[in-house]
């Protein structure tokens, strides 16, 4: 019985360490401040390049005296498909003020409001050789069961001669920004940097804790 307990204790430690250290790379959490003169998220959010879909949970508090409507936009190249969902009470009992989120805009943000926005992003496929984003007319080549898209015969031939060199370069990389703009002044009130990295560069990635 004693040995069984020790085995399960060690087993739990092993499984939990694996769970704690494993990075999924398809989601991140940012915490920021909405400020009249331009707020910024405390840490950039890192995501692993090459996934089909990503989720960023952007939470923020409105710092007084800011008050107003703020439009939210994901900025970066190449353009990415994304959807924004604001988290809030399903049945609003009216105990607290809640900003209304409609058409990618927070209406009536009040000082000290808390917002939680879920950003679901679907990046375009990238030509792994030249880095161009997918457009109609790209040709497809399947390598090891995965589809790759190329802008030209030249790119596809380069890939075919050295697929191992290019196979992990088919996802978006670099910096995007989830930007909040006051609708009246057009001034930026919050910027959340979102950085897409290759798997090898993902040491500090995964969910960011605060």
């Amino acid at each position: 019985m004693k040995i069984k307990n020790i085995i399960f204790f060690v087993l739990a430690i092993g499984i939990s360490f694996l769970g704690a250290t494993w990075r999924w790379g398809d989601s991140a959490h940012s915490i920021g401040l909405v400020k009249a003169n331009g707020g910024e998220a405390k840490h950039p959010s890192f995501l692993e390049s090459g996934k089909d879909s990503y989720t960023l949970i952007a939470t923020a508090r409105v710092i007084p005296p800011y008050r107003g409507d703020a439009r939210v936009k994901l900025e970066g190249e190449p353009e990415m498909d994304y959807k924004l969902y604001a988290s809030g009470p399903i049945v609003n009992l009216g105990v607290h003020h809640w900003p209304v989120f409609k058409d990618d805009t927070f209406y009536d943000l009040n000082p000290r409001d808390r917002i939680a926005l879920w950003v679901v992003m679907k990046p375009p496929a990238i030509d792994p050789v030249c880095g161009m984003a997918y457009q109609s007319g790209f040709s497809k080549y399947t390598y090891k069961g995965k589809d790759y898209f190329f802008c030209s015969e030249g790119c596809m031939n380069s890939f075919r001669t050295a697929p191992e060199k290019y196979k992990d370069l088919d996802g978006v990389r670099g910096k995007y920004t989830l930007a909040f703009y006051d609708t009246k002044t057009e001034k930026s009130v919050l910027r959340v940097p979102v950085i897409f990295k290759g798997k090898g560069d993902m040491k500090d990635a995964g969910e960011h804790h605060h």
Partner: protein
Amino acid sequence: MQANTTTNKKSFFVTHRYWIVILGILLFLPPLSFLFQFSQDSNFCGTWCPRMFFVWRKGISGSEFLTGFIRSYLGVALVLGIVASTLFLGRYWCSHLCPVGGTMEVGSRILPRFLKINFSAIPAPSFRYGYLAVFFVAPALGIGNLCCNYCNFATIPRLFGAGFSQADMAYFLRTAGLINLGLVAVLGFLAKGGRAYCNLLCPIGALDAVSNRIGLKFGRRVVIDESKCNGCNACAKVCPTWSIDVKEKAEIDQLSCMPCRICESKCPKEAISYGKIKA
């Protein structure tokens, strides 16, 4: 061990436990999320977070650690309230009020018996404290974190919310969300008794269990009157946290027991009761 109270009349907390559990679910979880709205929250994430404030993360300063307590002040109050009440009354939060464990138990009760998995071969305290050790140590060493990625207090409310809100639905569109869903399904809804998640992977439950053990001398607990017990095993069969071991007489592991008191209702000899433990 003997209890100093033996009554034939069943307690309200025994006969109405499922109603109290359902009340907890209604108060805490979507669509109403009643208690959260007083602090401009819509779930446990934020002011009510009960899982993060007590974890030291590598690289943070003392004041940043304390800021976590202030940010989640209602979560701090909740955990302190749970642990303090457990010292004296036993783990009533876990058995009667927790909407997270309650949902899994009610879910498991609704599912047909042939689907259920029996986890009772796992020595729960050993596993639980192995998990809790990593819960504390991994962030302190800066090598990872179990707080948010594997959070039962995030998953269960969003399971309710997903039917109403796309933001809650988005929770399950990520790898971490799907893994949590799997854990909750296998260790909760599909577990015999519905409490394997609580018993193995809940950090609040693990802290609460320590409080249950510490308060043994002066608090009220579920106890067995050995003079009445005939070792029939009826109690052990129904225990959702597999904390009763029957050799000649039944014995309760107070590190896993919560006062759901299902065993009390099942005991043909009325040997189980809730009260102070006599030395």
